[in-house]
Every structure is written in C-alpha cells, then in structure tokens.
C-alpha cells in the first residue's frame, strides 16, 4: 500500500486570478476615462451626496393641502398609461401576426421584425418629443407615444408566443373548414389571449413609470406637476407630487401582479 500524498497546487497570483484581475484592470482604466468625460470628481461626489441629503431633508415636507390638486394630474397619468397600453396592445397584435413565422411569409416576417427592432431602439421620450412637435403639448401626444413605444416590445413578445403555438391545433381548426380569418381568430388569437393580457399588464405597469417621465416633457399629468413645482422651487408641492407618484407606482405594481396571478390561475382561459 503506497502512501497517497496530496500536494496543494500552487499557482502564481496572476495565473490564478488573471482572468478576473485583467478585465478589472481594463475596466478601471475605462472608468477613469469615463469619469473624466463626465466631469466626475470624488470630492464633488461626496459633497454632492451630502448636499442632496441635506437638501432632501429640507424639502421633503409635503404640503398636505396640495393633495386635492394632485388628483386630476394623477388620474391623467393613469389614463395616459391605460389608453396608451390598450391601443398599443391592439396595434402590436397586428404587427405580431405579421411577424410570426407560422402565419406570415418569410420576407414579411423579416421586414416586420426589423421594424419592431428599430422601434424598440427608439426611446419613448424621443417619440414623444417628435409627437409634441407635431400635435402640440397634451395627453394626446403622451398616449400616442406610449402606444407606439409599446409596439416594439409587445409585438415581439406576442409574435414569439404565436410561434410557440402547437401547429396541430391550428391545423385542426383549418381541417374542419375554417376560413383564414377564422383560423387566426380561433386558432391563433384565442389561445394566446392570457399571454397577451399578461404582457399588456406588465407594459401598463411600465407605462405608469414612463408617463411620469413623459408628463414632464409635455404629456401632462403627475410628472408635469412634479417637474413644474420642483423647477419653480415649490418644494412642498413637489414632495406632495412625489408621494402621489409613489402611491401610483406601488398601486399599479400591486394591481398588475394581482391580475397576472389570476391569469396564471386560469381565470381568463
């Protein structure tokens, strides 16, 4: 019986951690460059953090009387998100049908997927800037920006859901003599309604957050209220608007989660 000796393998530090250390070194050099471009300085950073904390404590005293003024903007924000999402979902369904390989011919699918990808690349806020320049300030531009903005994401998700459908069930409906429209209605759209609703709910939740942003650029609603009172140094009012916004975001998240759980439980099927 010969002795088994276990020799610890000794690697040099560079060989052992090189795969981690070298990228880290590269990253820190890049970070230095980026920090120079951004004009970031550590003294300014800590100064800035301390300043904003002091500033926050100073301003975060909500003006309770302003709550009633916030009701209408808050409702406007919710409605912008709601109508924008619903319209966007309807449009995305059309685009999704054109982008699904089991319905559309290959060239159409490629072209639609390309368009959807292009749309996803455009930030909603730039779409809004464009629409505000065309239609003027107001919820109209906001609703359209959200609707257009959701097409890229929802269209792709729904198209993927359509492509994952079992071809047998589509063939079965076609086999009993359904027309093309009927096949699409009952064989394609009917089975994916739960996924469409759950994507739309997710998008609605995101739309509430977006509508805060979009509001400040010209769609109106609670975002405009927050932005305006902040830039006019009316901090009490800004704090009120912030609280209302937080409530909105929490509520939309809760409602969307609740409904999505219901759908998973087969409520819509």
């Amino acid at each position, binding site marked *: 019986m010969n002795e088994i000796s276990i020799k610890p393998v000794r690697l040099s530090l560079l060989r052992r951690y090189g795969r981690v250390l070298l990228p880290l070194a590269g990253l820190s050099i890049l970070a230095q460059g980026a920090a120079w471009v951004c004009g970031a300085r550590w003294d300014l950073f800590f100064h800035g953090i301390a300043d904003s904390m002091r500033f926050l404590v100073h301003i975060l005293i909500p003006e309770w009387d302003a709550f009633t003024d916030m009701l209408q903007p808050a409702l406007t924000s919710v409605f912008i998100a*709601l109508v924008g999402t619903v319209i966007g979902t309807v449009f995305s369904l059309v685009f999704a049908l054109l982008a699904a390989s089991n319905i559309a011919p290959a060239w159409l699918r490629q072209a639609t997927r390309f368009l959807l990808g292009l749309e996803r690349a455009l930030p909603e806020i730039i779409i809004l800037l464009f629409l505000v320049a065309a239609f003027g300030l107001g919820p109209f531009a906001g609703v359209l920006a959200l609707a257009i903005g959701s097409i890229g994401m929802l269209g792709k998700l729904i198209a993927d859901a359509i492509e994952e459908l079992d071809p047998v069930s589509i063939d079965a409906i076609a086999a009993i003599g359904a027309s093309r429209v009927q096949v699409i209605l009952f064989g394609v759209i009917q089975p994916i309604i739960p996924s469409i609703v759950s994507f739309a709910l997710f998008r609605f939740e995101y739309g509430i957050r977006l509508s805060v942003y979009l509001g400040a650029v010209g769609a109106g609603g609670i975002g405009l209220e927050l932005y305006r009172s902040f830039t006019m140094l009316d901090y009490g009012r800004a704090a009120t608007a912030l609280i209302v916004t937080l409530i909105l975001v929490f509520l939309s998240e809760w409602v969307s989660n609740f409904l999505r759980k219901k759908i998973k439980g087969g409520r819509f099927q």
Partner: protein
Amino acid sequence: MKNPTIDVLSPAGYRRRATIFLVIALLVAGASAFMGFDPTMLFTEFHYVTDLFNSMSPPNLNMIWHDETIGMAVLETVSMAFLGTLIGGGFAMVLAFLAAENTMPSLPVRLLVRLFLSIDRVIPPLFIILVFVSAVGLGPFAGMLSLVLSTMGTFGQLFREIIENTDPAPADAIYSVGATRAQVIRYVILPQVAPSFTANLFYAFDLNIRVAISLGIFGGGGIGFQIFQAMRLLHYHDALALILLTVVLIVGSEKLSDLLRSRLLNRGSLK
C-alpha cells in the same frame, strides 16, 4: 371552472370574457373622454406628422461629422451609462449579499437593506435627476449619479434573488468541514453567481444607455440634451440626424451586450 379547456367555448365562459372586454372598452372610452383624447384626431390631423417629417428630412448628416460637440455628447452618454452600470452594479452586488437570506444572518440588516432597495426601485428617476441636478449642477455627472441609484435599485433586487437561488448543497458541504461564512461566499456562492451577475451587468449597460438619453433631457447632458435642444430650436434636420445617431448607438450597444452575454453564458468563463 374545473376544466378550463372546456370552458373556453361554453356560453358562460364566453359571457364572462365578453364582460371583461366590455369593461375594458368602457374604461378606455371614459378615460379618453376625461383626458380629451380623441382617437379620430389621429386621422384628421395626421398631416401634421407628415408635415413635420417633411421638414425634418433629409437629415443633416454633415453636422455629425463637423460639429465636434456631437462626438463629445455621444461620449458623455456612453460614459454616463458605463459608470452608472459599473458603480451601481458594484453597489447592487454588495447590497444583494447583505439582503440575501443565505449570506446575511442578521434579520434587521436584511430587512433594512431590502427596504432601501424597494424604496430606491419605486422613486421616479425624474425626481432623482432633479435632486442631483440641484445638488451637483447640470451635466453628465448628475446623470451618472442618478443612473447609479436606479441601477442599484433594479439590479440589487435581482441579484438578491440570484444569490438566494444558488444550490445550497455545496455550501452545506463546506460548512460541515468548518468553513467560515466568508469562505462559503468566496468558494461556493461567488462562483455560482459570477456568470449571471456579469451577464446581467451587460444587460444593465444596454438599459442604461437608453435611460442616459432620456435623463439628458432633464439636465443630464449628452446626446439626449442635444436632441431636446435641436427640437426646441426647430432645427429639425439636425434633430433627425441626431435621432438616427441615437438609434445606431442603441442598436450597437444592444448587439454588443447580447454578444458578450451569450459568449459568457455559453462558455461559462469567470468561474
């Protein structure tokens, strides 16, 4: 409702779905009336969009090459997103380890960190950038700071879930031979989570490029601010060129991020 597949075409199921869609339709109609949103305006006033498009094209592509502030603006946006991802992601990792059940034994610390993360996640970025702009002044630095905060909120939560979903068996195994908590984190948890952390950070960078563009409008500087200026000053040809540049930037970063992510996840390096 025992068998949902049969319920699809039954009259009761049909009626219920019809009711749900009717309620949604009424809600949308009511909301549109409340806001003064008139869908027919899209058709009656569509010529404004085509007019605007006509006045925007052709894009003034020359400007991109000749105006050196544009190059700087792109660089600013990319740097903002990069630093926001790097610093925010770093903080997110540390906070995630402090918030995860299997790495942080103390319940109060865990709850405190989780509370911070969930507050951070819901505070609108608009408010964060406004506060930072008034604290450190206009410019990419304010944009970068708010990106750090938003990355921390979004990815801290995600990283915590990743840590908590690691396989507990190897940790138990080396605990049982006397490893300390730090050793368990270093030799069991870190190797398991490192690839997905890195992959998520690539995704975060892709996301942050978009956010950085939006933040620019509210004083974060960079390409977003340039677009906003051009639109406000009615320099539409410049604006279209800048928008095209933005699309190229975003698509490029998305492709790069996808490529790096898939290579990382397939090869499983950094283990």
